[in-house]
């Protein structure tokens, strides 16, 4: 079969099994868009800004496990995509981004809409390619998908100069079934000796804890993790990225750890004698002050990326491999072993954990005359029966969603954890809804974040992706305000939103339903009404307590045991801001 370069790109995506391309046209990709026009197999989703394309593809990838695909033009199209590429990179999300480039002969001449995309994205991609020869195009795309989806996943950019997609130049097309790259051989199974050592250590632990992260979700190892934890009877804590990898309503789950983690999770980490870190990377938001991190613990670390191991925290037993096969290997050894975890020690350990749990660190004022954001999330959980896909933006609302919506399944909690990208939530929700049209998709956001990609409301109308936007509106950049309250004597420098749009009218202007909720008793009925409108995007503008803070909190420079808790449960936390 002879195809031109533009057709090769689209046919390759089709052969790769791609359902959706999220993109925006422009000069350098006109040939490609002409090829898209002439076929129906791969659906193109036209966004309103290239950042939205990357986040939508990212949301799709996080929810499905399949790589997200983006198509942007050269120059500003490419640079607009960079934030979304970096977002995916930080959270190891598989994506393939095809960017147009000016024609090969004018590269380097500062041509119209020229930017060095390979150079600009180098630090925030797993790998990138500049295509120089149309006969290598199909193979390069195959390599891009191979690199993006294997090992520790990540975004891969394929930069395609316009002349490569010239419709007049046809070459034989064959999409390779397999590619190999001699310098790229990601590990699969773990080292047997290391695994044996790890199992021996686990079976002698007195105060063990399982600390698992996003790698368990990426590695499709939730089932194995759950079985592993149940077999051993150890407590489990998840990182922000790992929520849902272990069922949050399970009695062995002690909550999220880290800066806004639960008291019990952080204290258990601090007091533990053996930690097994599974697909987690000891991020600074998790560890707090490194010198005080888990002073009594011997650490086992399973990760597919050797560079994640002993990067910030030295570990005793590193295991390089995919989480799923390594956990299977460990489970087999544990079952065969004559040694069992000490019942007595675990009983003492759980008693201690129950005492920490009794602090009830997530309690808040339920009698408030104001709408508490925590209450909204709890109601969202009930109305959606815990089954929704929840995307979020970045800030206080993100932490409340993580704390008060107990995810029982992987890939349901979709947020920008590593890069912390405001504007992520809405386009990500659109990507999720395209993948799962029959499921409830909620975007928990705030009045500041939502405005960073609000233009995608238009995309939501065009492609009929009825998501529910839960806007926790406190007229502040809440998390910035909170830090200013804690660390800058309440000097609220530019953390307020002085002229917030009327979101209800805005939603209506975009063709959606808008609702404004300002009383606690209206929250539940409004949510029910919104989720009952199956075919409409609904924007719920919920006016919440402006002064509410996220607790518990480990302030920067402090250790896990040094947490700031909310005032004693039962007392009112309504207050005026200074």
């Amino acid at each position, binding site marked *: 079969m002879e195809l031109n370069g533009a057709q090769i790109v689209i046919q390759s995506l089709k052969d790769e099994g791609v359902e959706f391309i999220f993109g925006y046209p422009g000069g350098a990709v006109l040939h490609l868009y002409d090829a898209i026009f002439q076929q129906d197999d791969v659906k193109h989703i036209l966004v309103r800004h290239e950042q939205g394309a990357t986040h939508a593809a990212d949301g799709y990838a996080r929810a499905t496990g399949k790589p997200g695909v983006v198509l942007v033009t050269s120059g500003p199209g490419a640079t607009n995509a960079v934030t979304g590429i970096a977002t995916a990179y930080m959270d190891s999300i598989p994506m393939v981004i095809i960017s147009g480039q000016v024609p090969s002969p004018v590269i380097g001449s500062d041509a119209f809409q020229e930017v060095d995309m390979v150079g600009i994205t*180098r630090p925030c991609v797993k790998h990138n390619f500049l295509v120089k020869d149309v006969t290598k195009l199909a193979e390069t795309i195959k390599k891009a998908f191979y690199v993006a989806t294997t090992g520790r996943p990540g975004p891969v950019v394929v930069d395609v100069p316009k002349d490569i997609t010239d419709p007049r130049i046809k070459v034989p097309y064959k999409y390779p079934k397999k590619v190999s790259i*001699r*310098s790229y051989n990601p590990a699969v199974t773990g080292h047997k000796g290391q695994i044996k050592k790890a199992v021996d250590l686990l079976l002698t632990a007195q105060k063990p804890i399982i600390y698992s992260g996003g790698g368990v979700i990426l590695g499709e190892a939730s089932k194995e993790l759950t079985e592993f934890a149940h077999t051993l009877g150890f407590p489990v804590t998840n990182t922000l990225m790992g929520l849902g990898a272990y069922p949050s309503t399970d009695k062995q789950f002690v909550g999220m750890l880290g800066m806004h983690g639960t008291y019990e999770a952080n204290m258990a980490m601090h007091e533990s004698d053996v930690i097994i870190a599974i697909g987690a990377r000891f991020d600074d938001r998790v560890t707090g002050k490194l010198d005080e991190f888990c002073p009594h613990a011997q650490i086992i670390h399973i990760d597919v990326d*050797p560079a994640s191991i*002993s990067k910030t925290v030295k570990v005793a037993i590193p295991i390089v491999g995919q989480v799923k096969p390594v956990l299977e290997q460990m489970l087999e050894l544990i079952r065969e072993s004559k040694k069992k975890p000490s019942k007595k020690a675990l009983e003492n350990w759980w008693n201690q954990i129950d005492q920490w749990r009794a602090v009830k660190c997530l309690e808040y004022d339920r009698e408030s005359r104001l709408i508490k954001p925590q209450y909204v999330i709890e109601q969202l959980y009930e109305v959606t029966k815990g089954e929704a896909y929840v995307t979020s933006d970045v800030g206080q609302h993100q932490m409340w969603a993580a704390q008060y919506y107990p995810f029982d399944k992987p890939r349901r909690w979709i947020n920008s954890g590593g890069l912390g990208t405001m504007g992520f939530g809405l386009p990500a929700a659109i990507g999720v809804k395209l993948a799962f049209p029959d499921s409830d998709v909620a975007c928990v956001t705030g009045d500041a974040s939502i405005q960073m990609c609000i233009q995608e409301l238009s995309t939501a109308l065009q492609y009929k992706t009825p998501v529910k936007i839960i806007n926790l509106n406190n007229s502040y950049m809440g998390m910035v305000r909170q830090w200013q309250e804690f660390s800058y004597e309440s000097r609220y420098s530019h953390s307020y939103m002085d002229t917030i749009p009327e979101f209800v009218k805005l939603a209506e202007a975009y063709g959606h339903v808008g609702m404004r909720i300002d009383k606690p008793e209206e929250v539940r009925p409004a949510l029910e009404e919104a989720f009952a409108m199956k075919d409409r995007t609904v924007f719920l503008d919920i006016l919440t307590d402006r002064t509410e803070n996220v607790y518990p909190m480990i302030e920067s420079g402090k250790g896990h045991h040094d947490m700031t808790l909310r005032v004693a449960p039962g007392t009112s936390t309504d207050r005026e801001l200074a």
Partner: protein
Amino acid sequence: MRHIISILIENESGALSRVAGLFSARGYNIESLTVAPTEDPSLSRMTLVTRGSDDIIEQITKQLNKLIDVVKLIDLADSDHIERELMMAKIKTTEQTREEIRSLAAIFRGSIIDVTPTTYVVEMTGPSSKLDAFIAAIDGDTIIEVVRSGPTGISRGEKGLHL
């Protein structure tokens, strides 16, 4: 501690910038970097001298290995190895100093490869420390220009860095 990291890397445009970019992005220092194609034209050999604690060197080698273009690497400091650097030094001469510079160059097994009535160019190879010693032995005011390649290295014995 000083480490010499020897890297086999795909001979492709952009490969060098991936390595250099990694060092600047992660705040590692590069003392010197040399790169040239190998007997296999699809591969380049890169020799990189860096300094850091054991933890940092471990991270550097892991991060380098993570680059898709990096095929293989070794830290030469881990084993017995030979290190060589090429230097060319242009030195101002007078009737009185010419003999002295010639004999000094001879002591260091250097050779004089260009002569004008007022200058010599001395060529010398050796471990970096030997080149440093030669420069230290010469009157600093007479040095017009010094060009150094940066060290390259190879391990001793049968072991080698190859595919």
